[in-house]
């Protein structure tokens, strides 16, 4: 039983990271029906800004997190302005290819400065408690609580503020809503800023939990977060959160109770089965094709 609780805690930590990144995919898709494949690499850039803030500026945890979120949030806005906006009315394939290109650019740009894996210093003094045989570290608690806090905050922004209302409206109809005086470009920028800064927060926490970072770290985890978003129902914010926790739990539990070599194979087979029964994801709704 202790074993099960320990693994559940592991699943909760991994799941909250996946969920935070999945939010970025789902928000951009909800507004622009475009998949921002550079998001995993923005997560990586977030981890590197954590490194820069912690090592060169010597900042403690909270300012580091804020610096990383703000810088990467602005970077997300810039990427949207420079790379995606000119293609907004181009065929959707062009936008996807551009996003892949931006991702490759970010990886290789970081590679120029940091060809070696880098070590993140300890920002949070880590204490491990042993509660009835289950090891719980302060870092795990911070990651889980902070992720949930950020997700609740985002949910409130989307549901209770004017910006959030505008986002929901645009995701409903991108052509008509701007005619009613909603500034489309501003809202798209705000979406990118929010989505990528959450990705950066995930990057910071990931870098603290797994303190060796490299320019390629965003690729695999980006895919997994994207899959989480699809499982939860892409375009749906609460769905992305649920999808992240589901993928984290499935991955950890498969490795926990089966040979660990089966992990990805069984985990993704389960997700495929789920998509057969719920092709739009758990909370997703079919989008009617407008002719």
């Amino acid at each position, binding site marked *: 039983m202790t074993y099960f609780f*320990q693994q559940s805690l592991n699943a909760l*930590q991994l799941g909250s990271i996946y969920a935070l990144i999945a939010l970025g995919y789902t928000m951009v898709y909800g507004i622009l029906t475009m998949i921002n494949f550079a998001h995993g690499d923005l997560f990586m850039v977030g981890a590197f800004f954590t490194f820069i803030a912690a090592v060169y500026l010597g900042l403690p945890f909270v300012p580091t997190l804020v610096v990383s979120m703000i810088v990467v949030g602005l970077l997300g806005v810039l990427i949207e302005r420079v790379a995606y906006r000119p293609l907004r009315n181009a065929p959707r394939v062009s936008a996807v290819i551009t996003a892949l290109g931006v991702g490759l650019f970010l990886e290789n740009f970081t590679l120029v400065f940091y*060809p*070696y894996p880098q070590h993140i210093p300890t920002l949070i003094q880590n204490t491990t408690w042993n509660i009835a045989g289950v090891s719980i570290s302060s870092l795990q608690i911070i990651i889980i609580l902070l992720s949930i806090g950020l997700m609740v905050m985002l949910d409130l922004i989307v549901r209770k503020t004017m910006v959030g209302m505008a986002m929901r409206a645009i995701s409903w109809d991108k052509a008509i809503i701007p005619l009613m005086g909603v500034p489309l470009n501003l809202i798209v920028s705000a979406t990118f800023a929010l989505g990528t800064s959450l990705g950066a927060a995930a990057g910071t926490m990931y870098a603290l939990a797994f303190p*060796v970072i490299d320019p*390629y770290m965003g690729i695999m985890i980006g895919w997994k977060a994207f899959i989480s978003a699809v499982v939860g129902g892409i375009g749906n914010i609460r769905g992305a959160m649920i999808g992240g926790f589901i993928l984290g739990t499935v991955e950890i539990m498969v*490795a926990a109770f089966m040979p660990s*070599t089966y992990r990805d194979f069984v985990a993704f087979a389960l997700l495929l089965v789920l998509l057969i029964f719920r092709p739009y994801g758990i909370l997703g709704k079919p989008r009617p094709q407008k002719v």
Partner: protein
Amino acid sequence: MKKGTLIFVVMIIASMLLAACGTSAEGDVIKVGVVAELTGDIPAVGASCKNAAELAVKEINDAGGLEVGGKTYKIELFIEDNAGKADQSASAASKLITQQNVVAIIGPNASRYAIPASEIAESSKVVLISPWSTNPKTTLKGDTTEPKQYVFRAAFIDPFQGRVVAKFALDNLNAKKAAVLYDVASDYNKGIAEFFKATFEENGGTVVAFETYTTGDKDFSAQLTKIKEAAPEVIFLPNYYSEVPLQIQQAHRLGITVPFLGSDSWGSSELITLCGAECEGYFFSTHYAADAATPVATKFIESYKTTYGNTPDDVAALTYDSFGLLWNALKAAGKVDRESVRAGMAMITNYEGVTGNMAFESGSGDPVKSAVILQVKGDKFVWFANAAP
């Protein structure tokens, strides 16, 4: 396309063509190629390989050149990056063979890159010496036990290394129960993990957990929790230096206190930078110990230190030895062409290198040599024991 852009593109293409023309050979040179992991997930390996290669070539050229068959040749070195990818290792090897026309290739180092590159070298009939690859498959044809004709290495092979580490765990650490966590997607890690398991169990130990992950994973919590539950007395991590620190840190966080044991993939000074104090006191097997060096090794270590400012790691030492083998083969053959290099390599039966004595049995590209066990102490790797072949 706008006119300005067109002119720009034409200029770029023209400059590329001109640059390609500039590399034509002059005088008597021997062209040698290097394929190294300069970028990707283990760049420290590539950097050491490149440094040692440049040093080995510079020493020959500064001394006037290499005398082969009564004629003195300068050495020209071509270094290609494989970006830490198997397919690029193969294409880099082909490029060196077909475009640069090299007589031999040194590298790649990691087995998962050396194996595909060695296939290209074998089919093109060009000698390839991998400095650091320890997986048996590098020098074997396909899935057979028949040796490749053109592929050699400077390192010992994993059946031997697995045995050394397993014996060390049993005899020196008095462990009867071991756990293994390894990268199932990498030839090297998978090979040595299986050899370790086989020897450990043959000699009376039990492997209580045999867990895997795939390259690029950073969260090992599920596997480590499982290992903790199995209560081993030692944990073997035959993984690369960039991953081992994460595994050890996460294990410590889960409350695992048993010692860790590693293999030659630990041997980069980056390990200590990334691991901090958490790797203190752990042991790993490798090719040579910089602090217990022979006179041959001391000379190399000194000149490497003056050139690059740090102590050469095992990759650097093995790359240097690979070049030593190549110079000997060229001298023995007395001619500079690909077939002669192969004939020369086959003539070498014994070579005293930086990493100790290597004995080559006829028909095999694998040297018989000894290993050392090093311990992580402070910011250094310290010699602990020798293991004879």
